[in-house]
């Protein structure tokens, strides 16, 4: 039986009570994250939007009107608004064709478009490429970027110096890029192979 979400003291939130906010955010962040991830299967974008929504709410807390609904409803309203903004932003951008290899060529100099990251194929290629790295590199990349650990925490976990973690990361990034290029160059199903 799922626990009923706890009603938060609206007054504590509006007044900026840090204890109340901490508890509220603990509960709301995963929900927001899930909501954004459903819209676009792109974890980094989801993180970005969660962050934006939380800050919008923190900064605008005094404009919350309890007569119009609960604080939760209000923050989901902000989140929906951010989704709308994102959709509008995307409409202005050129469309992205599915070919990842062309984008990988410029990934040193330009941010990859979100649309590309949301391709199922991209995620597949990344998983494959990661799987082909040596274990240390894989572990470090996952710990750093998926779990969001710091180099120091990774060093502690892997019993290495922080310096060593940095250089593994450096190498891992390069080998991942090389692997990605290699894999994305392989013709996809339906295309003729030589």
């Amino acid at each position: 039986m799922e626990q009923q979400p706890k009603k938060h003291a609206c007054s504590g939130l509006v007044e900026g009570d840090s204890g109340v906010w901490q508890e509220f955010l603990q509960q709301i962040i995963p929900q927001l994250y899930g909501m954004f991830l459903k819209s676009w299967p792109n974890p980094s974008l989801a993180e970005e939007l969660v962050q934006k929504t939380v800050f919008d709410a923190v900064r605008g807390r005094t404009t919350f009107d309890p007569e119009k609904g609960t604080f939760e409803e209000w923050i989901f309203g902000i989140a929906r608004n951010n989704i709308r903004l994102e959709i509008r932003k995307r409409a202005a951008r050129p469309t992205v064709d599915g070919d990842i290899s062309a984008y990988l060529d410029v990934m040193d100099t330009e941010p990859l478009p979100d649309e590309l990251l949301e391709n199922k194929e991209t995620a597949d290629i990344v998983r494959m490429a990661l799987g082909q790295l040596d274990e240390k590199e894989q572990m470090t990349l996952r710990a750093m970027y998926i779990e969001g650990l710091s180099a120091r925490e990774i060093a502690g976990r892997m019993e290495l110096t922080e310096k060593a973690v940095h250089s593994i990361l450096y190498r891992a990034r390069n080998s991942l890029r090389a692997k990605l290029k290699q894999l994305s160059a392989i013709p996809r199903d339906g295309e003729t192979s030589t």
Partner: protein
Amino acid sequence: MKPENNNLENNISRLVKLAGDSNQPPKAFTDSLINKAIDELSQPDTTRERKSKIMTTKKTLKIFAYAALILLVCGVLILVMVPPLSKTKYARITAKLADEKQNILLKDLESKQQPTSAPTTQEQRYAYNEKMVAGALDKAEKLYMPADRVTVKDSFEAPALVKQAHSLSCIVPPPPPCKQSTPPMAHGGSKPPNGEDVDAMFFKNYGVNPFIDTEDDHLSTFAMDVDTASYTLARGYLHDGHIPPNDAVRVEEFVNYFKYNYPAPKKDDFAVYSEASPWQFGTGRQNSYLLRLGLKARQISEENRKPAILTFVIDVSGSMAREDRLGLVKKSLRLLIDNLKPEDKIGIAVYETRGRKVMDYKGLVEKDDILATIDSLSTGGSTYAEEGIRIGYEMAEKAFKQGYINRVILCTDGVANEGQTSSADILKVIKEKADKGITLSAIGFGMGNYNDVLLEQLGDKGNGHYAYVDTIAEAKRIFEENLTGTLQLIAKDAKIQVDFNPDVVRSYRLIGYENRDVPDERFRDDKYDGGEVGAGHSVTALYELKLWPEKKGKIATTYVRYKNAETGSVTEFKSEFNTSQLNRGFDDSSKQFRLAATVAEFAEILRSSYWAKGATLEPVLQQAQTLAGEFKGDADVIKLVDLVSKARQLMLKSPAKPVEDSQSE
């Protein structure tokens, strides 16, 4: 150290996240976001306060403007409606009143409009001032920093120009927030010798070689350089806890400091060793390769070295009065004497306020006399380098013997403040003597008011070489381990020309050798000054290449042209390098290759080269550590690890040096 705006890292981070299979945000993300949000809660709501303040001001302004407008309209109406009364006293008074009111109102309006209009004019003034000052600084910078080589005279004049630039910046108040322009050649310094305003380290900015499209120019020509002073100099800086100035770092001298164990040729004067591998350095470049050209000169055994007549010209001026200067010179000389052969002879001249001969030529039989003379040297006075060098050359000319090595060895901190303090005349004399067979080695000692530019040019023009001695270990390297190579030349005016194949190579950049550039068409001009290479010396040149994808064939042909140091006859030979010889990966390359790459990366980062953008010392340190393991017992490589780690700490502490942004691909 996290490089700013690192797109690669960002992209990798975003890509790797795709591989996570949880629908939950990472715990670290949630925790950090909660912390940031709570921090934000405790911030005073400055934005809102500011906003409301702005709103109130805007409202007040609006009200004032409306009031002023209404009054103005009233005034005009009164004037228009009551013209018949204008001639009466009452009318005049009314008109005057209205007029005054109008003036007041206009003033009022003006003052109300101030907040909106003022920033524009202010900004324009700033922009104008900034332009003026930037122009003035630019001019001053160009004056003492021409694109090509400047003479030492110029570098001596630099402080004056800096003053000029500063005074220019003072004419246009208020000082705008313009980009800071630091004098590129004068750094550091402790106490000026004799109170003169030349106390500074003199380095010259030769720029950084750009990438060149083979379509535009497929030939790359430069003079060989076996100097190593820049590395020892930088080492001195790092030991003292400073990052060396960008201009003190010459990549080729860093690279050439290390031993790469190229096998020496048996018959020929030179052997060429080429190797290339994929190379990832800096951000924003893909498909980069590093090409290493290694040249090794014929070795001459100690017994077969020609006898030498060595004339020491020692700077004993006040500025040398320190243990790391004259003290080190004396120790170095003792080392040298222990390694001389019975036929060798030594003479000594010194200079301070005046130059003088202190010891006529003596051989090893009179070793005690030589040592006593060396020990008796003491410092004092100003620095009349010109006279010292002249007397040294006079001695050398008298003692000149065919079939001997005739070498003047100048030991100084390089600052001249008496007589001809600029180098143009000294250099001319030295060049003439070098053509007659008396060569010159410039050995630098001491930090603080050290003239790198002068010494490098003396060594270059004197057909000898230039080294910097910071420790007794370095003195050993030059006067003991490498003495034969230091003294006996194999090749003179040696030049290298690399002809890249445009079908395979898209673009190239020569790493270092910026001040050794030779125009392509002068490669076969044997009067054109090249570099001198001593016995057993090796020269390493590195190119970063971008290859056309999938192209196979010849990458480059290397031409080497030099004069035999004995006979003066000119030899030219070539060596080819093909795509089939490329290593598959960087890690597949030889340890010597990786050492050269690591050292070059170190130097490029230290000199804030444009091409080192985004590169950090972390991977360099890691590579150096790995290499120290592979080069078991090579003290130079062990020392390198230490230096890179020192530099890394210093760079972490101090904000990053500005990157030379003037280059473009």
